[in-house]
């Protein structure tokens, strides 16, 4: 303390105090400031550049050079704008092979992905850099290995309320008008299911995180995985229920019995020789 009191009138004392104050303010800011957006780091900038290169080659012909979308002459949508769709939409569309589109059709089917994981990540980073949008979900919400029975039950309620109308009660999928369909949910990864709910691809409605919370989404995914892991007796028949089972029993079962009866009555070996 003696050192400070004897040197307080030193010509450099003012600068020393100023420096100390600045350092303290900086340290406090560093401690309490929100984490910087990841897109600012050098690695992500490279990723965005790589994504942009891939986009210009593979996507820009429909979605426009700057992902602004292309309108047809009649005002239709040649390729929708991707500004603000977020990384989640890219990860879903490219990761399930729906994009790039192979041909114009009522609906883009899922197929083996064209881009590998790194390329998909780069494309997602580029699209995410254009405008804020839903990010790829945290693993916390897509890991359903340790789900409680309570959450599973709740997930079932959410699934039956929001999803079964199109995707069927066990996620076997279903038909929609004009050649469109709700795809089956078997073998779809938890992350892609989450992203589909979040972004609403194609005709599927959006189920935003504000209404169906990430915890609810995790419960829904857990229910889908659980219900599809259960062994089904005999042939599942799409889990469509007793009406379809009954139809098969009547048409194929009863019809088969009639056909066999007719065949049995019409056949039988005979010999020309009379019994002696």
């Amino acid at each position, binding site marked *: 303390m003696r050192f400070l009191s004897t040197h307080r009138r030193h010509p450099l004392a003012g600068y020393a105090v100023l420096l100390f104050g600045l350092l303290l303010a900086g340290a406090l800011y560093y401690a309490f400031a929100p984490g910087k957006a990841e897109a600012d780091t050098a690695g992500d900038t490279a990723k965005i550049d790589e994504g942009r290169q891939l986009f210009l080659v593979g996507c820009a012909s429909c979605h426009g050079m700057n992902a602004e979308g292309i309108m047809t002459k009649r005002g239709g949508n040649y390729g929708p704008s991707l500004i603000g769709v977020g990384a989640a939409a890219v990860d879903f569309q490219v990761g399930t092979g729906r994009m790039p589109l192979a041909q114009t059709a009522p609906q883009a089917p899922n197929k083996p992905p064209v881009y590998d994981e790194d390329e998909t990540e780069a494309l997602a980073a580029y699209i995410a850099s254009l405008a804020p949008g839903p990010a790829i979900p945290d693993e916390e919400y897509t890991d359903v290995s340790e789900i409680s029975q309570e959450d599973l039950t*709740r997930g079932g*309620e*959410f699934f039956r*309320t*929001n999803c079964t*109308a*199109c995707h069927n009660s066990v996620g076997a999928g*279903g038909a*929609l*008008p004009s050649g*469109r369909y709700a795809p089956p949910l078997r073998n779809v990864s938890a992350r892609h299911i989450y992203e589909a709910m979040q972004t*609403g691809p*194609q*005709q*599927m*409605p*959006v*189920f*935003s995180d*504000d*209404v*169906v*919370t990430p915890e*609810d989404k995790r419960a829904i995914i857990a229910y889908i995985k659980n219900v599809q892991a259960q*062994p*089904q*007796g*005999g042939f599942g028949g799409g889990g469509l229920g007793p009406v379809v089972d009954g139809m098969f029993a009547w048409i194929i079962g009863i019809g088969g019995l009639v056909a066999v009866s007719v065949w*049995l009555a019409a056949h*039988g*070996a*005979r*010999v*020309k*020789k*009379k*019994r*002696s």
Partner: protein
Amino acid sequence: MSSESHDAQPSDGVAQPTGDEVARPPRNDIEPAEPIENPGLPEHLPRPTDVDPKLEKRAERQVAGMFTAAIILTIGFCVAYFTIPKDAVIFGWFSLNLALGLTLGGALFLIGIGAIQWAKKLMKDHEIIEMRHPARSSDDDREAALGVLDEGVAESGFGRRPLIRRSLIGAVAILGLPAIVMLRDLGPLPGNKLFHTVWRKGMRVVNDVSGIPLRPSDIEVGQLVNAQPAVFFETDSHGHAVFHGTELLQAKAKASVIAVRIRPDDIKPRKGQANWDVDGIMVYSKICTHVGCPISLWEQQTHHLLCPCHQTTYDLADGGKVIFGPGKRPLPQLPLAVDSDGYLIATSDFHEPVGPSFPEVNQHRD
């Protein structure tokens, strides 16, 4: 055909067509001759098992073998029932169900085909023709029956004692009255129940299952929310749910709604419903106006809502108009507003009956 089988036929009503019957000339001018001559039965040919005792013996062993296998399978069913654990799985199927089905099904199948084999290979198979009997009873029988009836009427004094007769007829006739009176249990008449739901002015629209109230900012363009009136998630002063049990289900059957958000430019509201949306968020009844199925097959890009039961399709951007299918009335829309806390609320009940149409649907009732 062998002679003993011919003799074994009962003489009454069973006849063998003979050559002269077939060639009989027409009895008169009205009944013409058969256009194609009756060819009669084909010649009866014996089966291999009829002529070869070895084959006959073999068929006998086959049939007995099938029946014996059926016995073994049935015992196998009982063994499987007690020994196979309930949750064991084989090839993705429950082992127990598979084993029970295969053993019991196999046993029934073997009994069936054993019986068929027996009938086709070993049982006598000569053709017989059984002629129809006349349906009328003989005159003697008819007279005897009428005699018994007349005797009963005479002995009971039914005709002689009009007091008893009339009171009995009255007693039996009035038995119809309880049946008519009990029709009252079909009621009471619904009154104005079909015209109202639990939606009230100021009631919040909440997400189904979780009960989260909805803010306009929570709902994105293209979003679908399966929603309910907030009252289903509220409790009264004693902490009991306001609606529960059957009452809840009945109220839900009318009050369930879906909220969707469509780009405001795409919306063509129905006449008089121009301001019923909030920035493109619209709430419609979830109950199909055809026969009342809950509908939420929502195509976000075409704005079409499809009923899975009979394919009625509504265009929600066009005031819920029916564009396909058997539905007649457009889907009722719930007028919306935002309350002081920023949550979506109804500004009134539905202005028209929700769900399937009924004869009085167009009457105005409060």
